[in-house]
């Protein structure tokens, strides 16, 4: 497995890895934000109850 | 039922006449926006002739959006919108009368002035005729779809811009077929398909839009 070639992606490295990067960032955000909101609400309910 | 329809229409015309500026401002907007394009793009006749169909149509879309503000606003401020929905006459009939009056006072003026604007952009005679026909078919669709949007956004903050955001994607097929009809004709191709599709969309709108607008009004007023 030639890692240099893998990273280079036949000259299109920027585009391929850019794709995976942007998809990862967006999808991670979509998980983290709701989870944080959920936990905050849980905290709030624990306090009032 | 026809009596109720004509009563609503007459009232709409009376209101429109009393607030003439509400009619004239979108019309002036239509003219001004169309004139902006030569100023932005340059006076080259060939360029203007090419972009003319799109420019006129986009300006018509935007002008219609402006005019939609007043579709329900008067009744909303007077508080008579509930009355309209509660009346013994079918509410969607009354709403469709309002939409028709709206088109006659806002859409039709655009149709009438469009040849002048087409000429200013160097359109050929065939182009001018098709412009009028396509707008004649298209502007009612804009009023119909716009009515749904106006009903949904009734009284909301962000009003006009929110309405635009909601409605413009739905206007896109009308734009494509309308401007496409003009471009096709000018290039010597038949525009039958475009106009038939506009006609079909109009039929769909006539059947569905009054009912959906009425439903949306009820949702907004509850």
């Amino acid at each position: 497995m030639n890692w240099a070639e893998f990273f280079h992606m036949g000259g299109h490295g920027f585009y391929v890895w850019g794709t995976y990067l942007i998809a990862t960032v967006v999808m991670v955000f979509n998980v983290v934000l709701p989870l944080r909101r959920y936990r905050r609400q849980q905290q709030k309910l624990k306090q009032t109850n | 039922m026809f009596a109720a329809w004509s009563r609503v229409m007459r009232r709409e015309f009376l209101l429109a006449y009393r607030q003439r500026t509400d009619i004239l401002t979108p019309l002036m907007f239509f003219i001004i926006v169309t004139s902006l394009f030569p100023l932005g793009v340059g006076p080259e006749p060939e360029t203007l002739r090419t972009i003319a169909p799109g420019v006129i149509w986009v300006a018509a879309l935007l002008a219609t959006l402006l005019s939609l503000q007043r579709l329900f606003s008067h009744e909303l401020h007077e508080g008579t919108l509930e009355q309209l929905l509660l009346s013994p006459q079918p509410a969607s009939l009354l709403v469709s009368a309002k939409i028709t009056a709206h088109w006659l006072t806002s859409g039709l003026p655009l149709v009438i002035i469009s040849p002048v604007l087409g000429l200013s952009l160097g359109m050929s005679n065939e182009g001018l005729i098709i412009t009028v026909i396509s707008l004649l078919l298209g502007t009612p669709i804009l009023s119909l779809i716009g009515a749904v949007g106006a009903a949904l956004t009734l009284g909301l903050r962000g009003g006009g811009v929110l309405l635009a955001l909601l409605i413009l994607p739905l206007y896109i097929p009308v734009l494509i077929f309308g401007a496409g009809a003009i471009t096709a004709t000018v290039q010597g191709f038949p525009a039958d398909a475009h106009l038939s599709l506009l006609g079909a969309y109009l039929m769909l709108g006539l059947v569905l839009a009054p009912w959906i607008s009425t439903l949306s009004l009820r949702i907004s007023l509850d």
Partner: protein
Amino acid sequence: MFKWFFRLAAAKNFYPFAGKLLPWLTGLCIISLVYGLYLGLFNSPPDYQQGETVRIMYVHVPAAWMSMFVYAMMAGAAIVGLVWKIKLADTFVTCSAPIGASFTVIALITGSLWGKPMWGAWWVWDARLTSELILLFLYVGFMALQSAIDDPRRAARAGGVLIIVGVVNLPVIHYSVEWWNTLHQPASVARADGPSIDGSILAPLLIMAVAFKFYFFSVVLVRMRGSILEIEEDSSWIKEARI
């Protein structure tokens, strides 16, 4: 069967049900994601025509599929919410919208990243990208409408109408954009698909698509559970269940 389904329509039953489902969905998502990425990045050949840029397709195409899938689900749920007045359906619609919009954004950006090496331009007004852009406008419009309305009941019903109007218009919009594109596009421009898809490329594609679906259902359930906790703050079952 239906009795169970309708019992689930109550938030207090749905909440624990979703909680139990969540680990499974998350697990399946991760497994299929890992497998799909393995196939897509390591175990599939570069395309004959597109070279390594075909690997962009493994993200772009499933994201585009999801953007439409989510909108379709939202439309279905909107109908359920309007006709049967099930509040949970409205919650589903509201919670799905940001996820669908995110997939649309991913599809558009990755489409751009695909277009630059393929066609030499960051953006082309081809039928699919243009339709995807319009879909983004529909999502944004919906979210704008929801945030502009304070009353949650009005927001849910108005949003539902908007989504249904949007879904009815979607074929019209798509068809008109397709047509517009073929009229204006010279015949020599390559279609975004390329020739028929080879098996070794189809496998990672489909697995990524499956992974994205599990992802969507996992995330939407998290959002819905959060939403339920917020909406039902004052109800007795939350107080009793010590949440």
